[in-house]
Structures are given as structure tokens and as C-alpha cells.
């Protein structure tokens, strides 16, 4: 049934339909309305789940690690400072191979205090061993959460679904909300092979000597290698049942494009809108929307690029001392594949500043006339 709902409502509905059994969360803007809606759904009995309103995000993740270890499906949502506070336990969740699903509503990291959007919070967690997806529409948020449980549970790897604070979380869009029986058919109950079981006592995550630790990490890396295939297959099954197809990199107008911009999150939709307008003026520009950071979709990226295209990356995040995280990831991938492709780096929209049509036009103009600087960050919309 089509409903006009916010990004956060799309999350709550997807979590309900996924029949999550344990939820734990701590309020933080702009995530809070997710936990509020879920408390209501759990309190009314619409969803038969335990919701623990813990005293911090660190406790929220700890609670879920406990719950997931008993073999049930678990969920939490957070933003920025909350995600950072979970950092220690994010490693624990992936190391213990628990398929927890977390929504991060992207918000810039303090100091100075801010509640507005950028993606530095989740990108800073890229080494914690979580799958990471970035959404641009409320429909995609809903669909990604349903798919994430399936992917995470097959791989035994936790999964983070990210979308932009306010731009997506609080914006209303039409979403096709699947019925319970349809979701049940796509996403059967979690079947854990290893879990805390009184009939078959086991201990997890105990002290590990150097003789074995590395093998644990090797296995986790293997799961991420396998993830490419599992994700593709899951998206295929999803498309077959629901009629909506996702790819980890999506190409728009790139076939004959001379300049291509890579973007993610809500900024990608502004970029697409701008690309369409520029096309009407006869400009040969295109967009690559990147939906996935971990595992990094290296092959899909290479396949999507044509030789000789001017390539720019729009980063709504900053890793001080190097630059935008997506840029660094893309440069590394191209380098690994032996491609000598120059990549222009554009940092914009930090701390909730709007990324406008004009900003995107400025970027394409710089890409087109060689004004961009390859050796440093090109800041967009910076007050000087």
C-alpha cells in the first residue's frame, strides 16, 4: 500500500514488518522519531518485540549483542555522537559475527555542537566490520532495511543503513509499504546456527591467543568478499518479488558523458536533478550514485566508468588531513585496478549546509573547464 511517510517512519515500518524481536535505543536527533514510533508499535503489541530504553548508545549496542547472541533478530537506530559512543561495540558485533541491523541517520560530529547532516559519523566507522548502505529516498530506506536483515543474516555480518538527517529522515515521500505476508515470504525468521542455547552450552568471544586471532579476521574478510555475490542475489530476489531493482552503483546518463560526478545520499538526488537540467542545455554530464561503502563496490565502479571521462566525487564528509572519504576510497580502488584516472575531490554541505543545484553546476563547470585542482580538496560553497 502506498503511504506518504517520512524517512524515519519508513524505517519503523520496515523494522515492524521484519518482525524484529529485540530493539534497544537511546534518543538522539534526528533519529529519535524512529525509537518513538517503535516504542509505540511495541507497546501496543503491534510488534511482538522487547524494547529496552537504555541509558546510552553504548548500552543499546551491548543489549543487542546480548539479544542477538540468543539467535533473535535485533535492531537499533542512532546518529552522530551516539554512533561514536557505540564504536567499541561495533567492532564487537562484527567480530562476534552478529547480524545486527542499525540505522544511522547521518548527522555531523561535534564539536562545535550541531544536529545537522553530514556523513562523517558513519564513514568514520568504516573499519569496524559493518556492511554500509547509503539511501537517497524513503522507498529505498524501507527496501534496504528489509534486504539488510536477509544479507546480514546470511553473511553473519552486521549491517548499517545510512541516510541523511532531516533531508531524508524528516521529509515525506510516497512509499510503497509491502504487506506482512509479502515481507514474510521474502524474509523468513532468523535461523541462527550458533547461539546461546541452554541445551547445548557454548561460550562466545573468549580470550584468543595470537595462534587464532588472525584467522578470525581472515574469516570476516572472506565474508565481506562473499558479500558482493550475496548482495547482488538478494537484490535480484527483491526485484523479482517487489519490482524494484537496486545496484550498489547506479549510473545515470554516463554512457556518453564527458564529465561524471559520483555522489551519495540525498545530495545525489539534487545532483541527478541538475544533471537532467544540464542535459537539456546539451551538456554531456552524468551521475554515478554510490549506495554501498562496505564492501566497497570496486568492480561495479570500474565497470561503470568509461575511458577519458572527467571524474569528480562529491563528499559530504571530511577526514581531516586527507579529505573526502568517498574520494579516497575511489582513488584507492582505481589504483588497485591499475587505472590511472584522475579524480577531482569536492567537499560540500558539511554540518547541514545545503548542496544546491548551483553548487552542482559549479562542480560540473570546474570539471568541464579544467578549473578544478587535482592536488587538493575543491571546497564548494565555502565562505572565505
Amino acid at each position, binding site marked *: 500500500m502506498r503511504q506518504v511517510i517520512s524517512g524515519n517512519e519508513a524505517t519503523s515500518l520496515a523494522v515492524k514488518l521484519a518482525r524484529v524481536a529485540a530493539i534497544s535505543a*537511546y*534518543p*538522539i*536527533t534526528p533519529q*529519535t522519531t524512529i*525509537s*518513538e514510533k517503535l*516504542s*509505540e508499535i511495541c*507497546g*501496543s503489541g503491534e510488534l511482538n518485540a522487547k*524494547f529496552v*530504553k537504555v*541509558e*546510552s548508545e553504548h548500552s543499546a549496542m551491548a543489549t543487542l549483542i546480548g539479544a542477538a547472541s540468543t539467535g533473535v533478530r535485533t535492531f537499533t537506530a542512532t546518529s552522530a*555522537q551516539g554512533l561514536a559512543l557505540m564504536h567499541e561495540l561495533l567492532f564487537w558485533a562484527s567480530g562476534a559475527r552478529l547480524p545486527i541491523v542499525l540505522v544511522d541517520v547521518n548527522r555531523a560530529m*561535534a564539536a562545535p*555542537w550541531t544536529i545537522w547532516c553530514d556523513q562523517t559519523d558513519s564513514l568514520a566507522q568504516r573499519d569496524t566490520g559493518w556492511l554500509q548502505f547509503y539511501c537517497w529516498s524513503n522507498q529505498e530506506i524501507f527496501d534496504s532495511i528489509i534486504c539488510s536483515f536477509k544479507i546480514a543474516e546470511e553473511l553473519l555480518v552486521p549491517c548499517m543503513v545510512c541516510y541523511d538527517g532531516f533531508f531524508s529522515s524528516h521529509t515525506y515521500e510516497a512509499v510503497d509499504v509491502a504487506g506482512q505476508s509479502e515481507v514474510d515470504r521474502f524474509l523468513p525468521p532468523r535461523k541462527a546456527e550458533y547461539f546461546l542455547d541452554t541445551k547445548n552450552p557454548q561460550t562466545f568471544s573468549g580470550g584468543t591467543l595470537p595462534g587464532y586471532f588472525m584467522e578470525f579476521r581472515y574469516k570476516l574478510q572472506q565474508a565481506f568478499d562473499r558479500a558482493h555475490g550475496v548482495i547482488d542475489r538478494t537484490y535480484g530476489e527483491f526485484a523479482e518479488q517487489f519490482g524494484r531493482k537496486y545496484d550498489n552503483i547506479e549510473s545515470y546518463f554516463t554512457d556518453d558523458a564527458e564529465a561524471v560526478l559520483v555522489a551519495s545520499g540525498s545530495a545525489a538526488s539534487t545532483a541527478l536533478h541538475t544533471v537532467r537540467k544540464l542535459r537539456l542545455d546539451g551538456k554531456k554530464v552524468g551521475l554515478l550514485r554510490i549506495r554501498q561503502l562496505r564492501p566497497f563496490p570496486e568492480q561495479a565502479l570500474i565497470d561503470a566508468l568509461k575511458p577519458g571521462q572527467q571524474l569528480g566525487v562529491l563528499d559530504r564528509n571530511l577526514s581531516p588531513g586527507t579529505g573526502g572519504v568517498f574520494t579516497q576510497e575511489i582513488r584507492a580502488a582505481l589504483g588497485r585496478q591499475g587505472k590511472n584516472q584522475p579524480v577531482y575531490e569536492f567537499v560540500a554541505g558539511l554540518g547541514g549546509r545545503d548542496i544546491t543545484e548551483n553548487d552542482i553546476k559549479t562542480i560540473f563547470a570546474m570539471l568541464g573547464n579544467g578549473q578544478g585542482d587535482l592536488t587538493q580538496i575543491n571546497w564548494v560553497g565555502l565562505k572565505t
Partner: protein
Amino acid sequence: MFRPSKHIREKYLEEEMWPSIFCQGCGIGTVMNATLRAIDKVGLDIDQTIFVSGIGCSSRVPGYLDADGLHTTHGRAIAFATGVKLANPELTVIVFTGDGDMAGIGGNHFIHAARRNVDLTVICVNNYNYGMTGTQVSPTTPVGGITMTSPYGNVESPFDLSALAIGAGAAYVAKWATMYPHEMMTAIKKGIEKKGFAFIETLAACPTGYGRKNKMKEGKDHMLWCKENTIGKSRYERLSEQEQNSCGKIVIGELRNIEKPEFTAEWSKLVEQHYME
């Protein structure tokens, strides 16, 4: 916006920051008023005073004061304040915090600073909910209290923050409500003068949040609620044991005032001793 007298306003408030973000009828203004009057009474040198706060509506207070302020991360104000006090024991350090900030996410810092008896004055605005994020259940939400995350009533037992402070070893503990601003001011004054960990809990209205959901939509409703649901410590002590057990009221007043070795002083003594040797 609350209006303190001209003298207090001119002496302590950061003109440019006003009007405040506080909602109409919010209890935080009264607590701030009482704090400034206490500071004035003590005759504190405001230039030798640091205000430290975490995150929440109550933690916004230092931003409105014409004094040094350290606005920190959610829940960690007392840890930051301990650092300030240790590095410069000459300074007076006052922490402004909320029930969520101090007893939820920052609960550990609270009990450990009380245990160590660090010379801080901690003023906690207890409005029974996370006000700033929009009325979620907090560690002091009463059983049955309605919030956005307990829409069918809270089932968890709340903390008695003052009892927690006493249990953890604080040197000075008082609990008042915005209904009693004068007594609150006296308690804050004594807290500032106390050499050691002083904790002043202030029951306060959050009409926009907890109040709206629990039949206390206006600031005055909370005042009346306090009048009915609190009992002064001396009156309480005159009750028989049976009456005490059945009265079901919150005991307010000065709940503890003892002398005990203070952390920074003890630390300096230790350093001096070993340095002398």
C-alpha cells in the same frame, strides 16, 4: 523568558544570548535565577568560576552567563569538571546538568565524583524526562509516567537522585523544587561553600514535554503537584515510622551535610608528602 532583577541581570547574564530557548513555564529559569542569587550571596568572583554542562535544555544554562563555560558532550560534564578542578583547584566549578544527562548517560561519572568527593557543585534540573530531544523516558520518569518512548506508561523504577548521591558518598545533598526558590538558593549557596562534592537536585517543570503528557501543561501545575507530593524533611522526621512508610511523598530539604576529606586537597597533600621526601 524569566526576568531576574536588574542587578543580577547586568552582573551575570550574557546580554547577546537572550532571549533564551526555554519554553514558557519551564523550570530551568527558576533554577538559574536561584543559582545566580546564590552566587551573588556568596560573593563569588565570577571570573574565577567555571560553569560546566553536558547536553540537554538544562545544560544550556552556562551559555547564557557572562562567565567561562565549558559546554561538553552528553553526560560527561562531571568528568570534564573533575579535570578542570584538578588542573586548577583555585577555581570554583559549578556543573549544570539534567536528569538524563547526569543520571542516564553520565550516571557513572556522577557516582564516582561523589565517591571521590571532588569539590564540585552539581545542580541537576530533574524534569523527569529527556526534554531537549522531545519527551523521552529518563531514569527519573515516575512509574506510569507517559512519554514518547513510554506511551502506555513507564514500567521502570526511577532513581532517587539525592539518595544515590548520599549512597555514593557526596558531602552535601539537598533536594528542592522550583516551588521553593528561596530554599533552593540557600542550598546552592551552601553547596558552593562546601569543600567537597555538593549535589542540589531541583524538581522542575517541563511543561512542553513531561508536563504536557502528564496533566501538568502549565508551569503552575507542576508547582501545585510539588505542593501535594513533597514533604519537608523536618516534618517528615516528626512522623511515626508507619506514617513515614505510608505517606508516599518526596522528601525535600537538606538531606546531608557532612565534612569529609576532599579529593584535590588529599591529592595535593600526597604529592607534597612525597615531594618533601
